[in-house]
Each structure stands twice: as C-alpha cells, then as structure tokens.
C-alpha cells in the first residue's frame, strides 16, 4: 500500500477556496430560483476570489522559506503566492465587471462557476513544480476559458472565438505536452529541479523539448509568432472574459515561464535567453505594427496585449534577480491597466449595444468623466508615461535588459514604445478630442443607468495604475522577495 503523502492544506487553500466557489456556483444553477441565481452565483464567485486573495496574502507572509507541497508536485513559495494575489485580484475585479453583462440570465450559474474554476486552475498552474501538475493546471484553466468564450451561444463572434481558441489552444497544449515528453525522455525526471540536475547542456533531445515548452507557453502568453488566436479571441469573447484573460492568463503564463526556465533549465540559459529575446522582439514588432491599423478598440487592446507580452518577456530573458523583480512588478500595473481598459470598453458596449470602435468612442471621455479619465490613465500607462506604474515597469524591464548586456533590446523596446504611442493616444484622441454631436451618435434609448459595480472596479484599477508609480518601493520589495524563491 502506498503511504499517503503529507499534505499542507494551508498551501492548497487558495485553490480549494476557488474550487469550492465554483462547485457552489454550479449548484446554484440547479438549486436556486431563477431570479436569485445571478446574485447568489456572482457573490459566491466573488467570495471565492476574495478568500483566495486573503489566503494568498497570508501564505505570502508565512512562506519566507520555499517548500514543496504534496511530494513536491507544487511549490509553496512567494513567487506562487504573489502571482496568486494578482490572479485573485483580477478575478475579483472581473466578477464585478461581469455582473451587469447582458447575456441570457440562465447561464449565470455556469458562468461564475467557470470563472472561479479558471482562477483556481491558474493558481494551481503558477504553483506547479512538476511537468504533470503544470500541464494539469494549464488544461484546467484553458478548458474553463474555452467555454467562457462561448458562453453566449447566440453570438456568432463568440462561437468563432471559442472555436479558434479551442483549436489553436489545443495545438499549443499539444506542443507543450510533446516538449514535456521529450524533456522527460532526455532526463527521466518530471520535477523541475530534478530536470536541472539530470539535464546535460548539449542534449539535442532536451533542447528540442525546451524549444517546444517555450513555444507552448508563448501560446498562452500570446507572444508573437504564437499570437494568431489573440485578436480574434479577445474581440469575440464577452468583454469581461477578455478582461480576465488579458490580465490573469498573461500573469499565470509569464510567471510559469519564469519558474520553469529558471528552475529546470539553468544549464541551457544561453539558449533560452536568446530565444525569449527573439520572441520578445517579434511580439513588439507584430503587436505594435498591427495595432496601428485597427479600428475596433478590443482589437487594439488585443494587439497591445501582444506587445506587452514582448515587454514582459524582456526581463525574463535577462535571467537575473533584477529581471524577476521587473517582471513581477510590471505585472501589477499591467493587470490593473488591462482589466480597467476592457472594463471601460464593456461599459461603452453595454450603452451602445454594438462593438466599440474608435469612431463610436467619440466624446465618451466627457460624457463619463470617471471612465474617461481612467481610460486616459490606462492608455498612458500602456504607453509607459510617468505618473503610471507602466513607466516604472518599462524602466525596470529596460534596466534588466541593460544589466544583461543587451542595450540593443533597450533600443528596440524604446522604438516599440514610440510606435505604440500612435494607437494609445488615438484612443485618448477619440474619447476627448471629438465631440459626440459631430458624429451624430446617441446611445440606444438614452443613457443607461450608471453601474456602480463596474465603476468601482475601474476606479480600483485606476488607483493601482497610478499608485504603483508612487509606491514603487513596497511593490518592489514584494517582487524581490518573490523573485528570491528562484535560484538565479
């Protein structure tokens, strides 16, 4: 009989809180009367994320020493907990943004259950310390997201997005899995640090596996040239789901990339640092150039998300403690900015009932000052202007690249930022510098009531975006402690 391993239930508590919330929300779909379904399921999902957030903070405080959980299948360390904090906060805000979305009410239970389950999968994924648990976490949150994209069955765009995501995402997972199999074949190990110990530098099987793992993770992080699904999926999915994907999925994928590459492949660092730098440059070029010609705001934000995958791969490619800090710092304002930006798009979409383009965003900044100012701040943050955390994040990323000796990468990043200004400021231009009257646009049936929940979420994102510029030191301390869980 196999001995039951020692299980650290506290370390698993955030995942379990989200799973519990998912299960209860799913039960709602059956047990709760129809008119109560949405509020109850929504509150359960929010409570699950709030609990995960609180537990992750507690775990962060008490995990100064990294340790394995369930025979080292997962790690309990500050890297995982900081990523959990970001994912849980994103999930909480996404729940608030979702609440007033106009889909058919009887899907509410399933929607919130899947939202909580996706978050649980990401939390599991960022803690994974073993190729199997890693893949399990990846599929867990991916499958939840596939269904979330298609939750509005009546909308063709949503179905198309979900199908595309399913096929391409499935392909990405397959590549990742094949890579894992090759690595297992080369080393005979599944656990990350054991792979590092068993791996040899010039093993072609291991290198091929590494390449496929990098490609598979780049699919999830939507980095070019593995980004093809991103614009269509971001555009077609319900906007709150897009908001959640752009913030949380990216966080999870990038943190996992950092952990796997640094822990399992330190011997091959000279290979993967260059590979990541190339992927980063591709993402910067593709994302920024393609965004220039977009009309739909969701597509602009999708390409912006690709280019930010590039920006955030730069510090990972630097392979240093400074790089780790830079990535973990950057994720905080980035998650806030993308959630907030998609939330503003969602608000406009609900008012108009049609997809939001630059044209029909005209004058919105003056109509809704809070949302307008927030969107302004998010765009400036994406473009790396001071007074937002996006500036400090870019600065740290460039600093990491320079310390690694890659001044050329700094130059590429700077040029990419310059190009990106055109479309980020284009959004601001559309919102503030044209008048609604000029374009003869009016919301269908007058202005809908203001949504307190969505506005609160946007305001929270604004506070994080601007606050992270001023409170750099505390955030960097958090990121520094988290990056110390890895052996740079």
């Amino acid at each position, binding site marked *: 009989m196999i001995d039951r391993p020692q299980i650290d239930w506290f370390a698993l508590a955030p995942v379990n809180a989200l799973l519990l919330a998912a299960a209860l929300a799913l039960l709602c779909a059956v047990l709760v009367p129809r008119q109560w379904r949405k509020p109850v399921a929504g509150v359960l999902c929010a409570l699950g994320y709030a609990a995960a957030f609180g537990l992750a903070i507690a775990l962060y405080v008490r995990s100064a020493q990294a340790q394995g959980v369930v025979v080292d299948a997962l790690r309990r360390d500050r890297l995982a907990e900081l990523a959990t904090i970001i994912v849980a906060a994103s999930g909480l805000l996404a729940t608030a943004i979702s609440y007033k979305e106009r889909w058919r009410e009887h899907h509410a239970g399933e929607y919130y259950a899947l939202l909580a389950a996706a978050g649980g999968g990401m939390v599991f994924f960022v803690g994974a310390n073993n190729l199997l648990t890693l893949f399990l976490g990846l599929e867990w949150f991916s499958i939840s997201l596939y269904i979330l994209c298609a939750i509005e069955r009546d909308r063709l765009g949503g179905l198309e997005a979900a199908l595309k995501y399913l096929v391409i995402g499935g392909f990405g997972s397959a590549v990742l899995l094949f890579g894992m199999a090759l690595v297992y074949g080369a080393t005979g190990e599944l656990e990350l640090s054991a792979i590092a110990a068993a791996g040899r530098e010039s093993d072609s099987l291991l290198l091929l596996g590494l390449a496929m793992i990098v490609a598979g993770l780049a699919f999830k992080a939507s980095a070019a040239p593995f980004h093809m699904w991103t614009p269509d999926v971001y555009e077609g999915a319900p906007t709150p789901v897009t908001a959640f994907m752009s913030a949380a999925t990216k966080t999870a994928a990038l943190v996992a990339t950092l952990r796997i590459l640094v822990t399992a492949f330190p011997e091959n660092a000279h290979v993967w640092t260059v590979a990541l730098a190339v992927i980063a440059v591709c993402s910067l070029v593709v994302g920024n150039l393609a965004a220039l010609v977009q009309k739909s705001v969701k597509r602009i934000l999708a390409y912006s998300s690709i280019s930010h995958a590039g920006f955030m791969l730069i510090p990972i490619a630097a392979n240093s403690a400074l790089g780790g800090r830079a990535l973990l710092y950057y994720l905080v304002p980035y998650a806030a900015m993308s959630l907030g930006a998609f939330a503003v798009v969602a608000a406009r979409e609900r008012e108009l009932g049609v997809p939001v383009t630059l044209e029909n965003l005209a004058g919105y900044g003056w109509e809704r000052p809070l949302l307008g100012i927030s969107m302004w701040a998010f765009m400036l943050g994406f473009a790396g*202007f001071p007074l937002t955390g996006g*500036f400090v994040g870019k600065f740290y990323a460039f600093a990491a690249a320079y*310390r690694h000796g890659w001044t050329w990468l700094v130059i590429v990043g700077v040029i990419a930022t310059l190009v990106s200004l055109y479309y980020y400021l284009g959004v601001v231009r559309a919102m503030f*510098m044209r008048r609604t009257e000029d374009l003869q646009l009016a919301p269908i049936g007058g202005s809908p009531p203001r949504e307190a929940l969505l506005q609160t979420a946007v305001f929270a994102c604004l506070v994080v975006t601007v606050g992270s510029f001023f409170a750099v030191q505390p955030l960097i301390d958090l990121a520094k402690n988290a990056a110390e869980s890895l052996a740079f």
Partner: protein
Amino acid sequence: MTTVLILLPIAAGLLIWLLPLNRVSAGSLALLAALAEVGIWIQLVARYDFERGGLQFDQQRNWFGDLNVSYHVGVYGFSVWLIGLTVVAMAAAIAYAFWAGRDRTRAYMGLMLFLTGAIVGVFTAQDLLLFYAAFEAMMIPLYVLVGVWGGPGRMAATLKFVIYTMAGSLLMLAAIVVYGLSQNTFDLVDIGPSSSNWVFLGFIAAFAIKAPLFPLHGWLPDAYRESSPEVAAILSGVVSKAAAYGFLRIAVAKFPEPVQDFRAPILALAAVGLVYGSLLAFRAPDVRGVIAYSSLAQMSLITMGVFAVNDLGLDGSVLQMVNHGLVSTALFLLAGMVERRTLTGELGRLGGMARGRPALATLLMTTGVIALAVPLSSAFAGEFLILAGVLRHGWGWAVVGAVAIVLAAMYMLRLISAVLHREVGPAVSDAALDLRPAELGVVVPLVACLIALSAWPAAISQHSFRGDRPQADVEAQFR
C-alpha cells in the same frame, strides 16, 4: 519649500477638477493658486542665499532603493530664475484663459495648474528619473490642452507634436537607463561625468527636439498656430526652456568630453537655426508664425550660449532664457488679443491698429522693441553676452549671431508695422476696442518684468552661478 512649489499647483488643479465649481469660481480659484505660487517663489528668491550658491532647499526621499532612484529636489541659482519665469508666465496665461473664457473651465484650469507643477518639477528635479518623469508629465496636459481646445487643425498638430517630442524623450529614457545603471546612481548631484557619446546624443536628441533646434523643428509651426494663445505662450515661453535647462544642467555639466567633440556640429546647427528661423519669421504670413519662428531663432541663440561653456556664454544664455520667455509669453498673449478683435492673424488683413488703441500699440511696441534687442534692453544684454561667449570659439559664430540680430530687427519691425501701422486692414473694424483693463492686468506685469530686467540685467546674470563663476560651476558639475 521646493516640494510645496511642485505640489501646490497640482493639488489646486485636482481640487478644481473634482469640485463642482462654476466657471467664475473655478477660474478665480485657479488664478488664486497661480498667484500663491508666485508668492511662494518670491519667498524662495528672498531666502535663497546667492552668495553661497549651489543646491539649496533640497529634499530627498527614497523612491526605489534597489536602483538608487530617489525623490530628490532642490534649487540652483539659475533654476530660481527659470522657476520665476514659469510661475509668472503661468499666472499670466491662467489669468488670460480665465478672462477669455474657455469651455470646460474646470478641466482647462486643472490641466494648466498641473502643467505648472510639472514644469517646476523639471527645473527642480535632482534625480534623472524624476527629471524624466516631470519632463514627460509636461506632455500629458499639453497634449490635451492643444488637442481639445486648439484650432481646426489641432488633431494633426498634436499628433505631430507628441510623436516628435516623444521620439526624443524615449531616446533620453534609453540614455538615462544606460547612464544611471553604469554609474549605479540616478542622483543628478552624485552621478559622475560620462564620456559616452551615445548617451550624450540620447539626451541631446530629447532637448534638441523640445527646444527646438534645426532641423528638428517640424512640429513647431503647427503646434504654435493651432493651440490657444495662452498655451502657445507657455509652449514657446516656458516649455522650450526646459530643453535649454536640460542642455545646461545635464548635457554640458555631465558630459564634458562629448561636449568638446560635438561642439562644432551643435553650434553649426544652432547657427543655421538662428538664421533660418529669422528668415522664416521675416517671411511668415501671420502674427503667430512670426513669433513661432522667432522662437526657433532665439532658442538656437540660447543653445549657442550654453554650448560656448564659458562665463559670458552661460551668463548670457540664462539671462536670455528668462528674457525670451517673458517676451514670447507677452507676444503670444498680445497676438491672442489681436486675434480676438479681428478674428484673424494674417498680416495682410491687419494694420492700422495703433490709431485709437494706444494701450495695445504701446505694449506691442515695447515688447517688440525689447525682443529685437535694442541697446539698453535686457535682450540686448543677453544677446551681447552670448555673442561675446561664442566669439571665444571663433569669430564666425559671432558674425552669424550678429547677422541674426539684424534679421530680428527686420522681422519684429515688420510685425509691428503690419499690425499697428500702415493703412487700416480689412479685418480691423472701428468697433475693435483698445485693450480692456483685464487684458492690461495680464500683459503689463510681464512687460514690467522686462523693463525691470532691462534696468538691471545683472540681477540674473550675476546671481545664477556659484560665486558668479559659471564655467567653474559647470566644470564642477554644480556639485
């Protein structure tokens, strides 16, 4: 005290933006804040020890320690005068905007006050990253001020303006990353000199675009024509000085060797810009065009003075920064007043406005005469010092400068005669009144400052550097 100077306008701006005030109370509150800022600056001048010189009223707090970046602000002798220029010009601009009445007053006034704080931040920042943050923070309100409240071609003008200036700024960011990390500190006082040409050029790119310097002035005519008069006044009067300040505080002080290597090309570009700007100003078809291109010429002259890096050139360029700031602000505001009355700035449709409008005529004439550097004016003192400074590097530079002063007389006199004299233009009706008391209240203080400076230019030129030895101060990197 320095922090108060930065934060007071920003806090007042936020307050005005958030409180549900009506047009009059928002405007008066903004004006009050701007005047309070002037009051604090007067305190600063009174308490700054010019005998001792160097960095005073400095405050330092940790921002992020692992890369040695801090919130470090302080004031040098020359920055005292540039801050003074900022607060006086901003107060005049805000007063004019209040009087002229802008749509969405709260947002407008809030942005103007935010801009004040950002510019003061540029002149006081003693940390490279903080300097960059303030330098960029200027762009945020300017982008909206030009883009929302500007003229019909404002969209294209703002886009050009932002892309140009951000291209320079981002090169500067790359230079800052390289410079700061290689020296392991971002503190402007502690950081040692660098001999890297690339880093130097990164900084120069940003400042040369912002100033602007030939051939990087493509954004200038559109931005100055399309923005409202008070914003154009601030752009040419104050924001351009941030670039000249950057030349002085960072480029010249921290890069002694690259300055030697690149002096000839930079002086040559400045000389070309000086002559070219003057000629364009002479050919410009409208009032704002004349002032805009004269600004290009004057900034080139100031740049020549800075890159002379000797006692006379540096003294002259600081004096001329303040002179040109005041002149340009006053001229743009006067241009706005003329445009309000005639609905056009085209010189061909103006004329004869002196008749029956003595106040306008007197003020435009006085400002114009000071701008063309007539002897005994403060601009004459400034330009003379700059020319004497560049003479040390070759008589050719001084000749070009002297020619440009003649050209300045040509374009200024053309402007004055086209607006004030000749026969009455088609756009000028008898109903167009003389300046109102409120308008006088805006422009007269600026002109009074200019006259005071003409009487005593040494107030600035002898109170800008430690021990009145500019070259030694620069060579010691203002430490």
